[in-house]
């Protein structure tokens, strides 16, 4: 696929290496790539030279000197455009840096939808370049680069035709057609005047040149006509041949005249590779300024308990979001917070003021701060398209606000009723509870599910009250809710995860037992992977109720934790208390909490929890089948009934889990990521094989409620197992996302476009 040396990263005058420090390994020289361009060059230059040498002298004498001049000018034009098309960087995107794709981890969706002039366009994740391809961008397999406004890979110039050099390619075609016509025409004129002495060398050469010209004229003229139509319609070759806009509307067209003028008259687009790196001369050092809160703002925040403010904020941001397409939200960097443990603690003060929740830097960070962006990001990352749709956000928001009161109501009793089984010292107390409740509500606004769920669970998490809340939230919101719920639970149960750290610290002791008891459903409700990370981190410090810097990794955000973040924490988990393991295990398919499940030591959940568990599980139903298997595995002994329902599984598994020591953690439980109808493939880190993997992973759950190789899933090194889990999630979310994309896209056209706009399969 890739041929030639250093063909990637652009060619042409800017033959500069890729912007990365690492020089890509040189690819093997592929001479076959150069055959067409060599042939084209040979024929073009050779024929024209012969024409000038044999035909033109007579023509200039016989008719006018303008003939060779005219031909010369045209030929020069042809050559110039040919060289520009061949050597110019078509608009290659530099590979994304490591930092950028951190949030797009294994579990990130393969596609992100964006709305362009009312039409849903899918942006595919490019596993090579590590970013979501902008609209009209495609990855050329020959050049191994993502090219902006990718048209096609032209073998005759041995270069991709993209945004930067399409104009030159188009002009090359036009001028070549003119040149061929001129050569053929003048050659014919020569022959007509030399019919008598046709056996002369000049005539023979002219005849040969005419033949070559005539042969090439038909394909070249055909291609020229084709591109004239494309330019007029504002389409690329890629879009035309893949039939993207066959029945639908092209969102990129501005009308014939504007399209033509854009191609011919726009300023030369800049190249992205090989730019002079500007040296950042700015020196950043604390202390830093902080935005000032006005008195009114402060008062409002304190008085309204964050609910009103959150509602207003979320609503306005929701509108904004819908107009801008959720997928285009900036990815939340929860993981950056996790990644940088020494993250700012400054949030603490802000949190208390702004969040009306106990100062929990992580919570604050995860909360979309009164804007749905966080939600969407979380959704997007967790379940992509479907979540990005406004409705899910809206529903999440509604549910969150409605459940917040419910939560509050049930909060108090919930707390007390749970016997504390957690060995973790409950650093938080009643104050924490209040704060937790508040936070929960506040968080709910934000994440509409993901985060709020998380915050709920994390705080003083009354086992039975949470499921209620979560159930309401989860059932309405996307799987992200689940994730957050799960996260919340996880965070509650385990202070391990960084994000949950702060939560755990504030969780009152009574929650511990509930946590243990409700391990099964906690783990079920919590999102899988994310929590894993969180859990891992948390479990590392189970006994240390406080002290761990609140990493931004809200349980919800854990999916975005970089693997590096995850790994160091993982080993610590094995030594954690059972329930910690339990939690983390189910969260993270990779978690190898080989530690004995904590269930053995935890008492069975109280009956109320059972009841309440049913609700969240209903929401958890949305979880892809794969998750069921995964989550169930957490209980280690997958009772046969686990197959049936997620929540049932949870119940039973938890019970069983409690009663028996399970060596296998439920790492499979990826949490309620997406509704089952999501068949959204998620992208793996290294390869773009979502469909294949997702299909395989889908079959997985059917086999057993728990992933058979529990040990494997537990092992940190079995990335494949984790990947499978994620695939299930992604698949579910992807299908849902696809559905949502089809539905959400401007009505029928949107649906068509959604279906039509596939990842370009152009054999670049």
């Amino acid at each position, binding site marked *: 696929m890739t041929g030639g040396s250093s063909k990637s990263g652009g060619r042409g005058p800017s033959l500069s290496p890729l912007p990365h420090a690492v020089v890509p390994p040189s690819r093997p020289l592929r001479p076959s790539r150069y055959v067409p361009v060599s042939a084209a060059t040979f024929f073009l230059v050779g024929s024209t030279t012969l024409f000038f040498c044999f035909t033109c002298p007579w023509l200039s004498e016989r008719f006018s000197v303008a003939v060779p001049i005219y031909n010369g000018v045209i030929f*020069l*034009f042809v050559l*110039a455009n040919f060289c*520009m098309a061949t050597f110019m960087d078509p608009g290659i*995107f*530099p590979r994304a840096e490591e930092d*950028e794709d951190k949030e797009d981890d294994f579990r990130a969706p393969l596609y992100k939808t964006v*709305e*362009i*002039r009312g039409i849903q*366009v899918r942006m595919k994740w490019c596993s090579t370049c590590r*970013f979501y391809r*902008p*609209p*009209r961008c495609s990855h050329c397999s020959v050049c191994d680069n993502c090219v902006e406004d990718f048209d096609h890979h032209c073998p005759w110039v041995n270069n991709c035709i993209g945004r930067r050099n399409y104009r030159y390619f188009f*002009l090359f075609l036009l001028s070549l057609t003119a040149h061929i016509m001129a050569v053929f025409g003048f050659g014919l004129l020569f022959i007509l005047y030399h019919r008598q002495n046709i056996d002369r060398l000049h005539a023979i050469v002219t005849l040969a040149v005419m033949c070559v010209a005539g042969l090439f004229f038909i394909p070249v003229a055909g291609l020229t006509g084709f591109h004239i139509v494309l330019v007029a319609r504002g389409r690329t070759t890629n879009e035309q041949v893949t039939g993207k806009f066959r029945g639908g509307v092209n969102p*990129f067209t501005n009308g014939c005249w*504007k399209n033509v003028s854009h191609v*011919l*008259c*726009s*300023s*030369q*687009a*800049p190249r*992205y590779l090989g*730019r002079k790196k*500007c040296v950042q001369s*700015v*020196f*950043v*050092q*604390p*202390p*830093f300024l*902080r*935005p000032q809160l006005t008195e009114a703002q402060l008062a409002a925040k304190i008085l309204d308990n964050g609910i009103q403010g959150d509602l207003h904020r979320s609503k306005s*941001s929701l509108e904004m*979001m819908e107009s*801008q397409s959720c997928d*285009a*939200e*900036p990815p*939340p*960097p929860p993981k*950056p*917070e996790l*990644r*940088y443990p*020494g*993250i*700012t*603690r*400054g*949030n603490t003060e802000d949190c208390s003021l702004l969040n009306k929740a106990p100062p929990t830097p992580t919570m604050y*960070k995860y909360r*979309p*701060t009164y*804007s749905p962006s966080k939600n969407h990001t979380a959704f997007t990352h967790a379940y992509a398209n479907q979540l990005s749709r406004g409705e899910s956000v809206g529903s999440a928001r509604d549910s969150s606000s409605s459940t917040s009161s419910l939560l509050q109501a049930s909060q108090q009793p919930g707390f007390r009723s749970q016997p504390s089984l957690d060995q973790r010292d409950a650093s938080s107390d009643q104050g924490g509870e209040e704060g937790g409740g508040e936070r929960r509500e506040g968080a709910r606004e*934000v994440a509409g599910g993901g985060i709020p769920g998380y915050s709920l669970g994390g705080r003083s998490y009354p086992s039975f009250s949470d499921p209620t809340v979560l159930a309401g939230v989860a059932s309405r919101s996307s799987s992200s809710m689940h994730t957050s719920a799960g996260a919340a639970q996880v965070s509650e149960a385990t202070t391990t995860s960084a994000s949950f750290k702060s939560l755990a610290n504030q969780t009152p002791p009574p929650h511990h037992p509930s946590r243990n008891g409700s391990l099964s459903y906690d783990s079920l409700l919590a999102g899988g992977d994310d929590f894993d990370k969180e859990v891992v981190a948390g479990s590392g410090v189970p006994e240390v109720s406080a002290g761990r810097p609140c990493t931004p990794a809200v349980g919800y955000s854990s999916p975005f934790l970089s693997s590096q973040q995850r790994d160091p924490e993982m080993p610590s988990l094995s030594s954690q208390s059972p329930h910690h393991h339990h939690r983390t295990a189910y969260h993270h398919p990779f978690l190898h909490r080989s530690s004995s499940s904590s269930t053995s030591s935890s008492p069975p959940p109280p009956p109320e929890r059972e009841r309440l568990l049913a609700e969240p599980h209903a929401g958890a139903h949305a979880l892809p089948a794969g998750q069921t298997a995964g989550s169930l595995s957490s209980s280690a002994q997958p009772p046969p009934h686990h197959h049936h329902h997620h929540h049932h599984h949870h119940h039973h598994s938890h019970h069983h889990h409690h009663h028996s020591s399970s060596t296998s953690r439920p790492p499979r439980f990826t949490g309620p990521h997406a509704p089952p109808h999501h068949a959204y493939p998620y992208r793996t880190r290294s390869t773009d094989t979502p469909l294949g993997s997702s299909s395989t992973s889908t079959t997985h759950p059917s086999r057993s409620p728990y992933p058979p190789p529990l040990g494997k899933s537990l092992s940190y090194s079995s990335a494949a197992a984790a990947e499978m889990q994620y695939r299930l999630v992604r698949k579910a979310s992807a299908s849902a996302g696809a559905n949502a994309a089809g539905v959400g896209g401007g009505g029928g056209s949107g649906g068509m476009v959604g279906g039509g706009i596939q990842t370009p399969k152009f054999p670049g």
Partner: protein
Amino acid sequence: MAETHSLQDMRPQAAVAAKVFIQRDYTNGTVCQFQTKFPSELETRIDKQQFEETVRMLNNLYAEAEKLGSQSYIEGCLACLTAYTVFLCMETHYEKILKKIAKYIQEQNDKIYAPRGLLLTDPIERGLRVIEVTIFEDRSLTR
């Protein structure tokens, strides 16, 4: 070239705490525009207005760069006539605007973002896909 460093410079720079990526806004097609939505991570660091103003200004500059105006037209004609050799000596309109943008970002960093522990990265370095905002750790508030 000998470089002198003030004692101030010798102090280590703040550690990077997080990175926020402002994505492109594709609602109007492939025109270069960035989302003006205020990311939540920056809530505690900078005013919403200030940030949105910066992004809006950047959007305006990019719109000006991609504008199909007389300058770009003349530039195109000239390039055609000289067989594109003019590109060897003259800077294109887009590049001129990019320089302006780089200067603007530098100035914003110096005046507004660095004092708040933030740093904007020129999006051209990321292929005009994202604006990278680096959030620096605020050690003064670390517990």
